[in-house]
């Protein structure tokens, strides 16, 4: 359990860094699959912060249960998101976000 005995600040720092890396990935990378991974990273950053807070508050059950819900929601998002990526790939034979810009005015 020594590994888990870090301070709250440490966990939060990791969580915020993960969140920013995820956001940067979505904004800067032009590959749809990598952008997708960035989104997952953002959700999991929230998970890390949530569990750190829950533990800091004396293993609060609300936080721990919330974490399970987030995992389930992330799985649903992945299912729909990947289906959409495949749908686009069938039409354009690409997963490059820049090549999917026919809708601009």
């Amino acid at each position, binding site marked *: 359990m020594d590994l888990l005995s870090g301070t709250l600040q440490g966990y939060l720092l990791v969580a915020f860094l993960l969140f920013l890396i995820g956001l940067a990935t979505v904004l800067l990378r032009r590959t*749809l699959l990598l952008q*997708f991974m960035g989104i997952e990273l953002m959700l999991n950053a*929230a998970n890390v912060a949530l569990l750190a807070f829950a533990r800091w*508050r004396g293993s609060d059950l609300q936080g721990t249960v919330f974490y399970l819900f987030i995992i389930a929601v992330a799985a*649903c*998002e992945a299912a729909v998101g990947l289906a959409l990526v495949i*749908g686009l790939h069938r039409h*354009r034979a690409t997963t490059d976000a820049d090549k999917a810009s*026919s809708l601009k005015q």
Partner: protein
Amino acid sequence: MNSALPTSAQWAALMPILFPALAAAVIPLALLDRDAGVQKWIRAGVYAVALFALGASFMFLAELGKQSSQPSYQQLRLDYLAQFTGIFIVVAAALAVLQSWDHFHQEGWVKGETISLLLFSVSGMMVFASTTNLLVLFLGLELFSIPLYALTATLRSRSSSSEGGLKYFITGAVAAACFLMGIVILYGLTGTLDISVMRLQAGTPLADPLFIVGIGLLLVGFLFKVSAVPFHQWTPDVYVASPHPIAGFMSVATKGVAIVALIRAFPGLTAWGPVLGPKVQGVFMLVAVLTLVVANLTALVQTSAKRMLAYSSISHAGYLVLGLVAGTPGALTGMLFYLAIYLAMNMGAFGLFTAFGLVGEKDTYEDLRGLGWKHPLMGLCAALILFSLAGVPPLGGFYGKYMIFKELVATGHVNLAILGVLASLVSMGYYLRFIVALFLQAPTQAQEREATEAPVIQASLARGTVLVGAILVVAGGFMQTVLVDGFAHRAIQGLLGLR
């Protein structure tokens, strides 16, 4: 924790949420591959089940509205505001279902679960609008967003459709992740997930910079759903990519529930204390000004009428956020009235495309030429709906704006009220362009030829919904006291505990 089963009164209150979800779960079972003859009947059955579920949901909501008690179950509150929003969502969904019957007849049937996804998002929206618990709020948000991502990409044979769906998915998922991070920060600092309890914990955590970051991230999620500038980029692409009825449903219901959830989270200015309250109000002010200016000016230069309607829906988000700036009970009541009229106006306006039988990429002003004379009744409805969108008295849209501007002036934001009036004057420009195309421009020869050769379009249900929209718009203008006192006022009073 009390984990008791709901009592019968609570069951009755939960039914409006459960019915659409149950129907949505049953419908995909009927969609197995069959031969064409059987499929026609299956389709009719699916639509009947969907309308039945929405109707049952509506009946339960109407029954709830007659009672004086406001039931709640665990984290869900089925108070007057939730009932108002429930009826709002159910009516929007029913109109969208009716329009989609005609739209898919014109566009060609997609094998699929469109109606099921629509009903799932109806349930999600009701959950989203009837809770102050942030966990349930997040689940509601995802339950209505994820089906909408898929709904945008319904027309799988068109590549722009899946592109729009993917754009909506990526932007929406980022907004949801920001929303979630905001929730986590607020929870960590206050130790509670209930935003109405959080508010009452006056003192140190409310002034903490990290707390302000949390509120900011939460607002990103809300404002994205409201599609206010600067979180509006997805709106035009997504509306153009999705089928007309779905675009109408998204523009009405998503914005409506997000506004209601905002009202629940930020009811008035005093609710968040002297430090945070003015900051939140400042954000709303900035967002409203940006939205009104950017959306109205961009809408002027569009060539596609559907894209113009998308920008017009962004500009209406601006007027609604202005109501939050004023923040008085009168302004919040005005916002709910505005939403009710907005439902009629936008479902009608997007329904026009189906009513005129415009399919595929035919959504520019050019395609609308002369259609007002060809379908006189629809032309009249279109004129009423568009004038109401622009805020011409004595139609419903005018009174919605009037109620919000009046409260703005009363709270000393005269500049914002003037900006709002100027914005509606500018909006007159692009709505008139729609009407001019319908009545004053003769169709080109190619269009005339196409019209005579084309088979008779099936659009009776869609025309009915447009007619309903136009009647509601006129009724909203002449009987606004009934609507306001009967529903909107009571909902806000119940929320703020004024009685």
